[in-house]
Each structure stands twice: as structure tokens, then as C-alpha cells.
């Protein structure tokens, strides 16, 4: 198994590097960097939903929290290394608290969805009403609807004068995605990851085997939030502005759609979904023929009806047919179990 993991890592790294070098020939690196940030965000939800069975309607909250943390810490510190670390830690800590509240409260699936959605809305509402001059953190004005422009963008660690942007930012982003992807692979191969999949499959059984599912789900939730926070920081340095729309339900919806379209229960699927749809959205934004919400909605409905497992498993199957490789069949997305009857 260890040996297998090593080989898989090597394959991922090689494929990733090749992809990172080839893609700029097809798409502008500026757009690619955005796609990578979205891919990272999709991966974060793909991890907790696809492998942990936790459907979070508010993944955008962690994304926004990461981006805002990066911007606010950047303005106060004047450089970006500590802000990046904080952008990972703050959403993770927030998710730890929120997750503990939800999972230790034994909330069912729908209720989990409601709480995450509501928390996102609260954050959105709150951040949206901070335009007044009293809302400052250190020397950073929160700015309400305006968001925060003009914070220091990513720099070489220890050298605040050496900014990372343009092509270089693309390479840093691609490397970040690759590293996170490898880390997620390792996590899923580890006992923790395999037990998380067990929890997705049958929560009660895993708990009857003696594992504390509440703690494990909380930790997984926090790991997902940490990745989303990192994606937020990446987005912030790319966009050079953070706005409350990062926290919006629209943003959360998009993340879920990326996962569905790409394929749940796979690592690559959500990233693929995010890439395809983010590119589509970017392109649709430049024409007025069809409304892009309409297209996104249509894509979602069609996928749920006709391709509920998403693109990645289908592509994998196509590849297997061509290559004749035998692998384990991809699993179908599970409908949630009936809630445990209460007394």
C-alpha cells in the first residue's frame, strides 16, 4: 500500500507538472490562475462532501473568510507570508467551532445544510453592513459592500518588496494546487481518510466500531475549511480586491455545482468541474446572448438527471475502455439515510 501511494504520488506530480506547463498554451495564465483558485475551492468541498459525506451549503464562508483574513492581515502586517498562514488557520478554527457545534449536536443532513447556509448568510449580511468608518481591524477598513481593495499582494517570503503576480503567480498557484492535491491523496490513503469514507458510507456502524465520528467529522470539516481558506487567499491576491460577494449563496451554489458536474467521490472531479464551469462562466460573461445563470442552472439539472456521477467517473470509464484497465467501479452518490428515529 505504501509503495502504491508512492507511485501514485509520482504519477500525480508528473501529470500535474505537464498540465501546468501545457495549459498556458491554451488559456491565458491570468484566467488559469482564477481557475486554479476555484479548483482548490472545489477540492475542499469535494473532500468533505465526496469523501466525508458532509454536504456543506456554506463552503463559500470559509473561502471568503480566507480571502478577508489575507487582506486584513496583509494591510496590518505589510507582507503576505503570515497572512497566508492565517488565511488557512482562521477558517479552520472557525470550522472547528462550527463543526463541533453541529456534529456534537447530532444534527441530521438537512439541518446541517440549514445551519451552514444560515451561518454563511449571517457572515454575508454582517460583512455587507460594515461600510461605516467604525468597522476597522487594526488599520484595515472592512468597507462593507465595497470590500477591501489595495491590500499587499503575495510576496516572496521575507521579501515584501518582491511581489508575486502575473506568470509567477500562476506557477505558484499551480504548485499550490499540486501540493494540496498530493496532501489530500495522502490523507485519503491514511487510516483517517479511510475511516472518513466509512463514516460517509455508514455513520452508525463506524461509531459502533468504536470510532468517535463527531470528532472525526469535525476535523475533516476543518481540513476542508483550511483548503477553502487557502483558495480564498489565492483568489484575493489574484483579484487584488475582496468583496462580500465571496460569502454569497451564489458562490456556495457554484462550488456545489462544480462538485456535481465534475464528479463526487473523486479527487480530480471537483477540480475538473470547477475548471470547465469557471471557464464557461468567464466566457459567458463576455456575451449577452444567453444569460449565464440560465446556462449554469441547465447544466446542473441535466447533470443531476442524466449524469449524476459527474464527468470524472465517466471520463475514467471511457479511458478504461480505451486502455482496457480494470479498476474498482466508481461509486454512486448516496442519498442520505433516513434520520435516526428519536425515541
Amino acid at each position, binding site marked *: 500500500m505504501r509503495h502504491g501511494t508512492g507511485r501514485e504520488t509520482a504519477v500525480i506530480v508528473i501529470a500535474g507538472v505537464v498540465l501546468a506547463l501545457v495549459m498556458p498554451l491554451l488559456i491565458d495564465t491570468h484566467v488559469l490562475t482564477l481557475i486554479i483558485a476555484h479548483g482548490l475551492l472545489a477540492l475542499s468541498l469535494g473532500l468533505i462532501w465526496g469523501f466525508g459525506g458532509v454536504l456543506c451549503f456554506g463552503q463559500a464562508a470559509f473561502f471568503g473568510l480566507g480571502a478577508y483574513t489575507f487582506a486584513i492581515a496583509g494591510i496590518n502586517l505589510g507582507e503576505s507570508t503570515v497572512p497566508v498562514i492565517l488565511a488557512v488557520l482562521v477558517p479552520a478554527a472557525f470550522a472547528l467551532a462550527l463543526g463541533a457545534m453541529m456534529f456534537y449536536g447530532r444534527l441530521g443532513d438537512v439541518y446541517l*445544510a440549514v445551519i451552514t447556509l444560515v451561518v454563511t448568510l449571517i457572515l454575508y449580511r454582517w460583512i455587507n453592513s460594515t461600510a461605516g468608518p467604525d468597522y476597522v481591524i487594526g488599520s484595515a477598513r472592512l468597507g462593507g459592500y465595497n470590500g477591501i481593495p489595495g491590500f499587499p499582494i503575495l510576496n516572496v517570503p521575507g521579501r515584501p518588496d518582491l511581489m508575486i503576480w502575473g506568470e509567477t503567480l500562476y506557477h505558484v498557484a499551480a504548485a499550490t494546487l499540486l501540493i494540496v492535491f498530493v496532501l489530500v491523496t495522502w490523507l485519503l490513503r491514511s487510516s483517517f481518510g479511510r475511516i472518513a469514507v466509512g463514516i460517509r458510507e455508514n455513520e452508525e456502524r463506524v461509531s459502533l466500531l468504536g470510532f468517535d465520528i463527531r470528532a472525526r467529522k469535525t476535523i475533516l470539516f476543518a481540513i476542508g475549511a483550511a483548503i477553502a481558506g487557502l483558495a480564498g487567499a489565492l483568489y484575493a491576491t489574484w483579484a487584488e480586491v475582496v468583496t462580500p460577494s465571496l460569502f454569497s449563496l*451564489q458562490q456556495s451554489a457554484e462550488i456545489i455545482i462544480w462538485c456535481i458536474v465534475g464528479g463526487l467521490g473523486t479527487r480530480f472531479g471537483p477540480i475538473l468541474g470547477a475548471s470547465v464551469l469557471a471557464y464557461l462562466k468567464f466566457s459567458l460573461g463576455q456575451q449577452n446572448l444567453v444569460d449565464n445563470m440560465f446556462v449554469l442552472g441547465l447544466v446542473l439539472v441535466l447533470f443531476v*438527471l442524466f449524469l449524476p456521477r459527474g464527468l470524472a467517473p465517466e471520463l475514467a470509464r471511457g479511458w478504461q475502455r480505451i486502455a482496457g484497465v480494470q479498476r474498482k467501479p466508481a461509486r454512486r452518490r448516496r442519498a442520505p439515510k433516513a434520520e435516526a428515529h428519536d425515541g
Partner: protein
Amino acid sequence: MDLAVVILVEVLYAIASLVLISAGLAVVFGMMKVINLAHGEFMVLGGYATITAVGLGVNIFVAMLIIAPLVVGLFGLIVERLVFRHLYGRMIDTMLASWGLSLMMIGAFKMIFGNTTTGVSGPIPGFAVGNYQINGYNFFIIVVSVVLLLAILAVLRGTRAGLVARGAMQRADMASALGHSPDRIYMTTFAIGAALSGLAGAVLAPLVGLVPTAGAAFIAKAFITVIAGGPSLVAGLASAAASFGLVNQFFSFLVSPVVGDVALLVAAVVLLRLMPRGITSRFLRGKL
């Protein structure tokens, strides 16, 4: 004293509008355990139906109370046949498909009606309470929502369809045991839920400017109200709407409407943490 009356009316109005906003969603959720995330857009469709009908010279009350529910109910019936009936038993998939539908509807509204805020003027004049002026339309909304709740109660209590519905709410297989095909029950329920959403959107249209994206503001509140209400349809709806309406207006008056909204959301989180299965799982058990 006058102020107290004004505040009371505003609180009742807030509760009534929450009931209205949530009724369609509650019926669908109660019967089918499906969260229809296109509910907000169904409401917006009701609003547009009203505005279009009024533009064509129809009496505004006819447009709101008859045309809009019919149009949206019919639309609900069509999408149920086209999309949702393929997804029963796959709860998350149903939710996602309805989300997709909601995005499509927003897009379609933009293409058809444009993105500009539209609306109709309220048909009822304001009137004075002592030194204060109140929006007379508030009373209309309060009346409509009370009538709506009583109507649901009467149907559930007094009719054969209501009996089947109550059975289906308890257990999905109960209805088929009574000799009714679940397929038809689901179809009817969805259409009725959609019609109620259309009614809500139509009745609220004169008060709130209508934009294609207006549904988002409704769905979150409706979602929260329905879930927090818990298993009983009418009692749950009324109790959750009352709690949230009270909290919302209290903070709206004390601080601002934004804080009122945030307080509502915080109340929802606290409530669900304390009563994870909703208010009526602990209180008013066994009521309708």
C-alpha cells in the same frame, strides 16, 4: 400608545409574511421531505404573473389571488413531470435539481423581463393610527396568511385528500396502502406547493420591488422557518414564523432592519441547536 399599535401591526405583518413566504415550501417539505430550492423563484414568477396580468388590465386582486397561483401551479406541475418525478427518493439530488431550476428561472426572468426593478402599486391606501401612518396593505397580508393557515388546516382535517396527505406525511407507504398512487400524490402536492408559492409572490409583489434575483431573499427565510417549525405543518409554520417574526421586528425597531435579519438568522441557529428537529418535535406534538 399609538406607537405600540404600529409596532404590533408591524410584528403581525412580519409573522404573516413569514407564513406566506414559507407555506408553499412547507407543504412540499412536509409531504415529500423535499426542499424545493426554486421556491423563491416560484414566488418571483407569481409576482411577474401578477404584474403582467395587471399590465393587461386585469383587476389586481384577481391577478394576485387567482391568476398568479394558477400560473405558478401549472408551471410547478410541468417541472414536476419533467424533472422531479425522476428523482424521488434521492433527496440531495432533488435539492440540487431544484437549485438548478432556480438558476435557470433567474436567467429566464432576466432574458424575458429584463433586470430592471418592476412592481405594482399597493391597491389599499395607508391609514392613520393616531399620529402614525400605517401601510394599509399590511392588513391585507395578515388576513391572507391567516386565511391560508385556516384553509390548510381545514383541508387536512376535513377532507379525504387531507387524510391521505396526513398519512403520507407520517409514512410514505401509508398513502399507497390507502390505495393512492404516491406518484399522483407527489404530483398534486408539488403543484399545490408551487401555487402557494405563486400566491405568496403575488401578494408580496406590491410591497417589494421585483427583480429576477429577488427569490434568494425569500428562500433562505422560508427554508429556515420550515426546518425550525419541525414535523407539524400548520403548528410548525405558525410557531416558527411567530418566533422569528418577533425576533426580527424587535431588533429591527431597536437597531435596524439589517440587525433584525441577522438576529433572525442567529435565532435560527440557536433554535436548531437546542431543538435539532424543530419546534414541533418538542412542543405541540401531534398537532397538524
